[in-house]
């Protein structure tokens, strides 16, 4: 129930205003949502990831940034259980990952909506696979569409939706299962600048105040810093963690105003240097 319940419960404030909730990541094992230990991976004879150690706290929002080919998507797919680790291991919520996990939500740049289903049916799809009864899943899908400002498009097919609307439906499908871990692979990358500026704050608004852990893969430094609690910079050939930067910006964040913030600019400088 994490995201859905919390997003609309104004009285609950699990996240401190200064954004330091992520400091819990280093404390006790139960506070760790994702633990990656000594993970290496290769495709054919290309070494994509080498000896990655990373842990993500429960409720923390981290961004993985890096040039293309640094293995950030591979790392995300390993956490998702879509790929098997060659060496090392990954634990999510205390359990070793060896395949897709029901409570993990996954989303990428392409919406991957089923074109023969309406927006409503696409959101309900994830619930349907979980055996939620028809009336119940339609009710919940409708609630998500409402929250995402898409209720008017409920009965439209993919081909009738704009790129931004499609991605919002995909977000609804991902969130409808109420995941405790969200894996996002460049979810805003295929959107035009304006749609991106609408969707990013919408996503933060839904997430802030929830206890869902987020790993966002992106190559956009501004997106990473403005949204995440921590920015993990990866280098390539082979993929390694180059820098792990804590983003001490208060929440809720106003993305549009961040550009003028001196802390933000300092962070931006640091991440950019680590990237090159």
């Amino acid at each position, binding site marked *: 129930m994490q995201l859905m319940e919390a997003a609309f419960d104004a009285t609950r404030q699990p996240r401190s205003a200064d954004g330091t909730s992520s400091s819990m990541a280093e404390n006790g094992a139960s506070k760790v949502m994702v633990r990656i230990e000594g993970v290496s991976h290769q495709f054919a004879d290309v070494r994509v990831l080498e000896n990655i150690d990373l842990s993500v706290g429960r409720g923390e929002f981290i961004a993985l940034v890096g040039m293309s080919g640094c293995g950030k998507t591979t790392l995300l797919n390993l956490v998702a259980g879509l790929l098997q680790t060659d060496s090392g291991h990954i634990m999510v919520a205390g359990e070793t990952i060896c395949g897709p996990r029901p409570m993990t939500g996954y989303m*990428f740049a392409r919406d991957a909506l089923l*074109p023969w289903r309406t927006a409503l049916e696409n959101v309900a799809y994830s619930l349907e696979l979980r055996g939620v009864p028809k009336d119940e899943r339609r009710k919940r899908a409708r609630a998500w569409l409402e929250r995402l400002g898409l209720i008017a498009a409920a009965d439209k097919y993919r081909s009738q939706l704009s790129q931004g609307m499609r991605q919002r439906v995909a977000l609804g499908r991902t969130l409808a299962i109420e995941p405790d871990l969200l894996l996002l692979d460049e979810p805003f990358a295929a959107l035009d600048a304006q749609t991106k500026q609408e969707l990013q704050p919408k996503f933060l608004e839904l997430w802030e105040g929830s206890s869902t852990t987020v790993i966002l893969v992106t190559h956009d430094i501004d997106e990473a810093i403005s949204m995440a609690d921590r920015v993990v910079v990866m280098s390539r050939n082979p993929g390694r963690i180059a820098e792990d930067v804590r983003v001490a910006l208060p929440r809720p964040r106003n993305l549009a105003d961040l550009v003028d913030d001196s802390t933000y600019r300092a962070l931006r400088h640091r991440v950019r240097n680590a990237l090159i």
Partner: protein
Amino acid sequence: MNGTLASDASRTSATARGARRTPWVHSRVNVYIARLITVVVLCLIWEWLAYAGYADERFVGRPSAILASFFKLLTTRSLWSHATSTIAATLLAFSVGSALGIAAGLALAAWPVVDEVVDPIVTALNSIPRVALAPLFILWFGIGIESKAFAGFSLVFFILLITTRAGLKNADPDLLTIARTLCSTRLQTFLKVVVPISVPSIFSGLQLAVIYSLLGVVVAEMIASQAGLGVIVSQYAQTFAINDTFAVLIVLGILSWLLATAVRVVESRVLRWQKA
């Protein structure tokens, strides 16, 4: 006349982008009228060639006489028993051939190992001109409905197998990835993703199949059968009743068109999302 048409065409292309004015040819009714005029003009030329003696009516027939034969044929009681026989065999070949072809196509897509084994066999069987096997089918199954339905079936089965399988090979891998991340079972993925993906190509296969099932049936009837439109086509043709032969061909044409239209109607219902 030529001049106006040409200027009309150039104006059409000039205004196409602005779409301010509906081009003459884009009105549905006008298209039908133009088609009718084309057919009438071609028939008049044919009529005149036969009338003036440039073409020998005993060999090529004559539209006015064909039309008279056609209406005479419609009042013949035996036409209906022949037509029923052909329709029954065609529907049998079409339904059984399509059902088994689709099932085989889906099965081969689900088990690539099997596909690898049987692929050259399927290609070899499909490259045999089945029409040439019709005498053999008659030898095996007699001159009742079985042999001609089998001739149609032997064409339809492979058409559906190949189009169904081809449709699945072009499937968007993203849809399967999302299904995996949602912990979809193999059966769920098959029913909710794989089968719907194959539906558009199945329908293009059915469009072909309906025509080929009639083809198979009529060819078998022409060789040997108790009843059927193919039987009377070959009887008329062998006795130089050319106008009567053409009259039966008109009946076959109408039949073929009705069957194809029925498939198209079902298709536009099922694939509403494509046109949305």
